């Protein structure tokens, strides 16, 4: 039985794992397992729009390393639950080298992939910038749940910094998925594989994602969906071109 998990995440776990789950929440970090039709999967994530600092990053990387060590030659899937407002903004955290902690976490996630763990990210709540880059965005499959907010920066802040009027940005955001917040924009760009709706059977949908390729298919998806037309072709041309 899951312990101390906040109400909204508890409801999510109940829905994903009707056959049972045991996840604990300590300091905004989720860790445990869920029961699926084909066996247990690991659950690692964050709650309550966590601002990822060195403590949380270390807890996440420790959880990933533990899973890799325990599973050995029988790697089970890992379901990441991403709910982050971004990186912690603090002078001390910068002094400690927070970016290095994120890099370490990313390396651990990549080790899990190379060790055969299927990696699925579910965005429940917010997924913002650095906090999202550190683990959620590195999964094999990324899913946004209803109401998920995915962004780098909101449009008002962007207007301030780029000195482009807010009205103009909101107008352009209707035509292009490239800068405005929104899970659907990330879907069109291939950065999110699927958008789940409230009506579906999430347990069955998760089940369907627990097998598949480890390849980074996002640039191709972005081109197919028309939201990111250049990334794949430019990378391919640099890779295979002659000049």
């Amino acid at each position, binding site marked *: 039985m899951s312990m101390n998990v906040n109400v909204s995440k508890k409801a999510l776990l109940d829905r994903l794992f009707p056959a049972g789950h045991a996840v604990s929440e300590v300091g905004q970090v989720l860790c445990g397992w869920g029961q699926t039709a084909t066996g247990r999967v690991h659950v690692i994530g964050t709650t309550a729009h966590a601002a990822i600092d060195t403590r949380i990053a270390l807890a996440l990387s420790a959880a990933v390393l533990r899973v890799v060590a325990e599973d050995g030659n029988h790697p089970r899937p890992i379901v990441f639950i991403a709910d982050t407002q971004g990186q912690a903004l603090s002078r*001390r955290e*910068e002094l*400690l*080298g927070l*970016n290095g902690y994120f890099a370490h976490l990313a*390396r651990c996630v990549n080790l899990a992939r190379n060790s055969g763990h299927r990696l699925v990210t579910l965005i429940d709540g917010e997924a913002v910038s650095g906090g999202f880059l550190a683990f959620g965005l590195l999964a094999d499959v990324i899913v946004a749940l209803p109401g998920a907010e995915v962004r780098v920066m909101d449009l008002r802040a962007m207007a301030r910094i*780029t000195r482009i009027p807010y009205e103009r940005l909101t107008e352009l955001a209707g035509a292009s998925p490239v800068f405005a917040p929104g899970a659907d924009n990330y879907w069109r760009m291939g950065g999110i594989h699927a958008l789940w709706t409230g009506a579906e059977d999430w347990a069955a949908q998760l089940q369907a994602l627990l097998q598949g390729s480890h390849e980074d298919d996002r640039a191709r998806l972005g081109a197919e969906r028309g939201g990111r037309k*250049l*990334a794949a072709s430019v990378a391919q041309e*640099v890779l295979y071109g002659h000049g």
Partner: protein
Amino acid sequence: MMTNPPQSFREASARLRVQGLLDAGSFTEWLGPARRITSPHLAALDAPVSFDDGVVVGQGLLEAQPVVVIAQEGLFNGGAVGEVHGAKICGALLRAIEMRARAVLLCVDSGGVRLHEANAGLIAISEIMRALFAVQAAGIPVIALVGGTCGAFGGMGIVTRLCDALLISEEGRLGLSGPEVIETVKGVEEFDSRDRALVWRITGGKIRRTLGEATMLLDDDIPAFRAAAAKTMGDRPRQRGLSPDALQTLEAAQRRLEARATLDPGIRDGQQVWQQMGLGEEVALMDPAEFNRCLEARER
């Protein structure tokens, strides 16, 4: 040995850095400026575009060894990563595997994601991270060189720390959130971004070298970067499977990072770190070579 005249890494453009790092005349650019692959997203926002979208990628020789070089232009939109810019970096990393390059030189000079195309930039950085893992898995070291005006921040600060080695000048800066962002959100008491000395003591090359993040501290000099890159490349045995990703390696890294995070919570300034190590005011006066020696002696 040939001695080269000093040439500031910081003041040079990305293109001049590339020329100065590689053996003379050996550089071939991929998707160069004449191809005009510019950012449609900047154009849509009526912002100036650049012929190379702010990054130079290609191959060349470093002391006769084939290398891939990637250099961000910090003066164009703060070296920030957009769709084309990011895709060029990704493609260049993957090409290093195809051509069995001896190393990748990654000159990071970037504030992170380009806001005008923020979603594309964020996804691109994540793709760069995965491409970089693939390069390392093929046994090719990626060497980060940081010494430009923008430093290495945001997602590119994370990418920099994924590299096998980091060469940084005293003026080079490395972090996640820029001081201006922290000041804007948390207030000037948290981080006074106009206090240049403070910014340097938090993000600068010397403190990054002190904490073991940078491999070597360098003079602001392109020939010095070139020599250090060649030495770093030579230091690493080229061996497939010599992976920094092995479980034990990462468990050891986890312990080191945990130990660092237990640093006295009162410590919020690089000066305090140096004081705790028994280093005082002299830190600011030591030249890079002296400083490297001082730290190497302690690390032993």
